[in-house]
């Protein structure tokens, strides 16, 4: 079986691999959407905090001997706390301003975080081993699928669905959605909005860190690992439209898969395909695939 000169197994395997990358896009764009919703801030530091999640995972093992599974919980917690501190110290002061100041501030924070890690650990980064339980892989016949990658897809899907459920189907989520539009009024209904905002940022950031933990064994843990990813995720967000939580999850996965396919058919374009899709989507549906018109 062949399709445009590429064998079907090859396509299948690339689809699966695309799904893995898509999982990262999904979690990251989801975190961005959650934060943007309530704080009105496009969190440029998201990539840096993703990286921090990975670094913290490494530190946990290296300095304290805490294994991967514990860090899967601890790293998001630690980074979430860091996020809470950042929110209290910095972001707090700019909510009343135009969105762009949030973008610029978090860009500054991203540079600070990345610069800090760079001077501490250098640029070539640190190496993290796959946890023993997930070493090896499945032979799917058409490809060798490392267990760890399968786990990444599973774990991120679970986390995404959990988040979706929390936001769309619970009372807490209703506060969140309402707070997104008019935080002062929600506060006037007796809800502690500042706390909610702080926790939301912490949560969004923890999502990034969770992705970071997942990424640590796959990629080299380096200060630059988030920098390039984040711009692609921005494009994903534009394509999805950030209108809905489900939207960012689905778009993330979808683009991972499309990117994966490009790697087979036209590898040279695999870095640009997301941006090209963004351009096309903008032409056809300016509000994004899942976005609502103004």
């Amino acid at each position, binding site marked *: 079986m062949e399709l445009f000169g590429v064998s079907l197994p090859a396509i299948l395997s690339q689809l699966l691999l695309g799904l893995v990358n898509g999982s990262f896009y999904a979690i990251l764009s989801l975190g961005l959407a959650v934060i943007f919703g309530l704080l009105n801030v496009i969190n440029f530091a998201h990539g840096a905090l993703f990286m921090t999640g990975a670094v913290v995972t490494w530190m946990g093992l290296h300095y304290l001997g805490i294994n991967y599974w514990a860090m899967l919980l601890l790293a998001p917690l630690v980074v979430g706390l860091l996020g809470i501190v950042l929110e209290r110290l910095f972001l707090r002061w700019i909510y009343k301003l135009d969105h762009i100041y949030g973008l610029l501030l978090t860009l500054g924070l991203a540079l600070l975080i990345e610069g800090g890690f760079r001077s501490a650990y250098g640029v070539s980064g640190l190496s993290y081993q796959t946890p023993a339980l997930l070493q090896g892989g499945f032979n799917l016949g058409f490809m060798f699928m490392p267990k760890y990658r399968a786990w990444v897809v599973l774990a991120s899907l679970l986390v995404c669905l959990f988040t979706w459920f929390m936001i769309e189907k619970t009372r807490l989520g*209703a*506060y969140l*959605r*309402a707070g*997104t*539009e*008019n935080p*002062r*009024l*929600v*506060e*006037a*209904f*007796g*809800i*502690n*909005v*500042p706390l909610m905002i702080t926790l939301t940022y912490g949560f969004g950031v923890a999502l990034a860190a969770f992705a970071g933990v997942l990424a640590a064994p796959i990629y080299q843990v380096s200060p630059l690992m988030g920098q390039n990813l984040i711009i692609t995720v921005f494009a994903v967000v534009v394509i999805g439209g950030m209108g809905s939580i489900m939207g960012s999850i689905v778009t993330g996965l979808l683009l991972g898969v499309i990117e994966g396919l490009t790697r087979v058919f036209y590898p040279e374009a695999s870095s640009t395909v997301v941006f090209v899709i963004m351009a096309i989507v903008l032409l056809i549906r300016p509000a994004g695939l899942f976005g609502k018109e103004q």
Partner: protein
Amino acid sequence: MVKTVGTSALRICQLQGWYGESHVLHGVDLEVRRGEVVTLLGRNGAGRTSILRAIMGLIGRREGSIQIDGTETIGLPTHRIARLGVGYCPEERGIFASLSAEENLLLPPALKSAGAVSGAGTSAGMSVAEIYQMFPNLAERRHSPGTRLSGGEQQMLAVARILRTGANLLLLDEISEGLAPVIVQALARMIATLREKGYTVVMVEQNFRFAAPLADRFYVIEHGRVVEHFAAAELEAKMPVLGELLGV
């Protein structure tokens, strides 16, 4: 804690308020007793909305004293003030677009109203059924996104929303605005009922004819101060002054 009708539900002393640099409230003194309906009158920009916002802690900066059921609230954050049993219906309605009409209605958490008043029972708010009965439009559009309702429907929703929470100090800002005359009449009946049930109501109204028959007392605000206040009984006598102050 049982309180009797007549004690002060809201007492404001020397309230100053600012939006950023601009000073809009210049020493407001005002008292509302439990179970009373009080109306704030004034021209556009006199500062009535600002008083309500100041009570909720929603303006930039405030000074002076605001006591709710005897609790000083000037230093409290907004959400703590609300939890004292205050329901606020803003001028701009504040309907949430991402929530359906019904979700909007159910959004504010039920408040453990501090001053559960005699006569109002434990003042559990109105039930959803009661609300839909009062505003049939809302029942019909309950699954629409909140901001897809018409202007008037949104106004109804905004009022209904706080009636549900069980708050017993209601701050209502221009609730008759943009409503068809029939609905305005229905609202008037509703406020009368609320008073009977022992709610305390502070209304800001442009629509003098709507407010006049409902209120126990009136305050007239000008330039961020109280310039006149009187009871319903004195209304006739005060008409000439009002005419001058408000152009009624």
